[in-house]
């Protein structure tokens, strides 16, 4: 059982959902990013997803895309992220997960990345454009370095395919709440319940719900069907408005 799984289980056992904020690395500036990371860490984050910016984030909505481009303009690279996290290793209570498109990892070198990321204290990776069929090699390397490759599933993922993911799934399962990109949903579609039920049957690791989440009451209908919640666009928007991550994190206490 990876540290990510453990962390979520602990929260669930404490009668709450694990809290997983997402923040683009180097957003809004290289310095402020670490301030906000700190705020997230000391205000209830169980796991923090750090976005690795990419020029062509085809699975993201406008908020994350804009944050990503802004970070790139400021010279944020995967190497910078790994180096800065290495410097700060051990400072964070939350588990750290990197989330980014495959190409920057590919250019970094899968082997080198896995080693450096493990050294930096990263325990998981989410790659939205690396579906099951393409993930074999990278996943194996990551596993060798103790990094979990998180599976993403959506409303159109058949149970049979969930099973294929489940065979090798680690950490937690990222359930995409609707058919779309990050940050968009106003209401979750009715099929979501079925997806969560099936996922619960298939996977023996926790389920995290993400995409379009702004506030706790959105989760009420799901009860125990989910174990963790991921929020990104709404958080970024709030940080942009208020200059701090604290108020947004307060909502989830």
């Amino acid at each position, binding site marked *: 059982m990876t540290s990510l799984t453990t962390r979520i289980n602990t929260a669930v056992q404490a009668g709450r959902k694990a809290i997983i904020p997402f923040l683009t690395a180097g957003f809004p500036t290289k310095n402020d990013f670490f301030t906000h990371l700190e705020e997230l860490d000391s205000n209830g984050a169980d796991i923090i997803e750090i976005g690795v910016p990419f020029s062509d984030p*085809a*699975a993201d909505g406008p908020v994350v895309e804009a944050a990503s481009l802004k970070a790139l303009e400021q010279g944020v690279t995967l190497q910078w992220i790994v180096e800065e996290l290495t410097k700060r290793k051990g400072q964070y209570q939350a588990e750290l997960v990197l989330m980014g498109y*495959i190409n920057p990892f590919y250019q970094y070198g899968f082997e080198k990345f896995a080693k450096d990321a493990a050294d930096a204290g990263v325990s998981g990776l989410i790659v939205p*454009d690396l579906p099951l069929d393409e993930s074999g090699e990278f996943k194996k390397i990551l596993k060798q370095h103790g990094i979990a490759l998180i599976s993403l599933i959506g409303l159109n993922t058949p149970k049979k395919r969930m099973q294929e993911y489940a065979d090798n799934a680690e950490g937690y399962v990222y359930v995409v709440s609707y058919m779309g990109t990050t940050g968009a949903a106003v209401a979750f579609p009715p099929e979501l319940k079925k997806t969560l039920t099936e996922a619960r049957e298939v996977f023996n690791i926790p389920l995290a719900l993400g995409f379009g989440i702004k506030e706790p009451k959105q989760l009420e209908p799901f009860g125990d069907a989910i174990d963790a919640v991921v929020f990104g666009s709404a958080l970024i928007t709030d940080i942009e408005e208020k200059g701090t991550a604290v108020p947004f994190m307060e909502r989830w206490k």
Partner: protein
Amino acid sequence: MSKGYFGEFGGQFVAELLIPPLKELEDALENIVPSEAFQKEFSDYLKNYVGRESPLTHCPTLSTDLGFNLYLKREDLNHTGSHKINNVLGQALLAKHMGKKALLTETGAGMNGVATATAARALDMDCIVFMGAVDVERQSHNVRRMKLLGATVVPVEAGSKTLKDAINEALRFWIKKQATHHYCFGTAAGPHPFPTLVREFQSVVGKEARKQIIERTGALPHSVIACVGGGSNAIGIFSGFVDDCSVNLIGVEAAGTGEEGCTNSAPLCLGTAGILHGQKTMLLQDADGQIMPSHSIAGGLDYPGVGPEHAHLHHCGRAEYVKVNDMQTLHAFKALTRAEGIMPALESSHAVAYVLENKDKFPKGCNVIVNLSGRGDKDMDIVEQYTELFD
């Protein structure tokens, strides 16, 4: 891992949410496309709607200058003015067989958008076209054509506001609308099965050209040359000759303004391997894997990636990839227009330019085919900025 791969290139690097529609399309490619009924319907459209077969035109004046025979495969004469219609009609027909009601696509120069909007009308489907805001601006002629054809054109304001961003946006939209919409990918790139599907529908170009050159000259050509943007016109004509080992296949990329380090659209000549838009291929990118902006005077070549089968043909050496810059292209545009009365698209002018600039590489008296992928009417505004060329 070899499904959808050409050697080490290709694949299906997309969000999990796009796997189901891609699988649906793989099924259709395997089961519907080869069926006699589909093939008949498709070739009826190509013949009676598109106007195929397209001729193979000998260029008497240029051939005399060059010392060898230059033939043009005339995709410029297709309905809507380029090779794009072959692919989109095939895909639109397939989408109809799959029960889809609408087409979505991306476009750079607008040719694929016009072709898709047209195919949608021919098959009575809806159509939505994503186009970078910069391209909307500079290709207003084609935007107007799409609108007249009843398509919805969505300007994309993200990123570099060009083709690659339009593809991102189209992929995003497809996630949402996969139940009703077919993503009519415009070139032989993107996630599997698009590179294969598009080659399949463009292969008519190569089949015709091979038959025609043999009829006309009694032999296979020395070389077959095509411009390479995403790579659909090139793969279409190459596919007819790829098994003929004696035939040189030459893909011409866009070198942009051409000086060392300039912004270009030549990922095979100047790029490195990477992953974008669902495929592992050659890309223009920085050391961190960020995609670099591309440039070419020919809007349709302005893309920082290339279809994976070209990356493979390049890697294994079956095809040669070269590059030609903007000024060489303009000179070729003028040369062909003035010598033969055929105004080529600036994309196609790249392929012509390679021949004109490298005539010593071709033996005297040999036969060379250039794929004339489109007509140049759309490029008049651009060409006319270089008045010094035309006096």
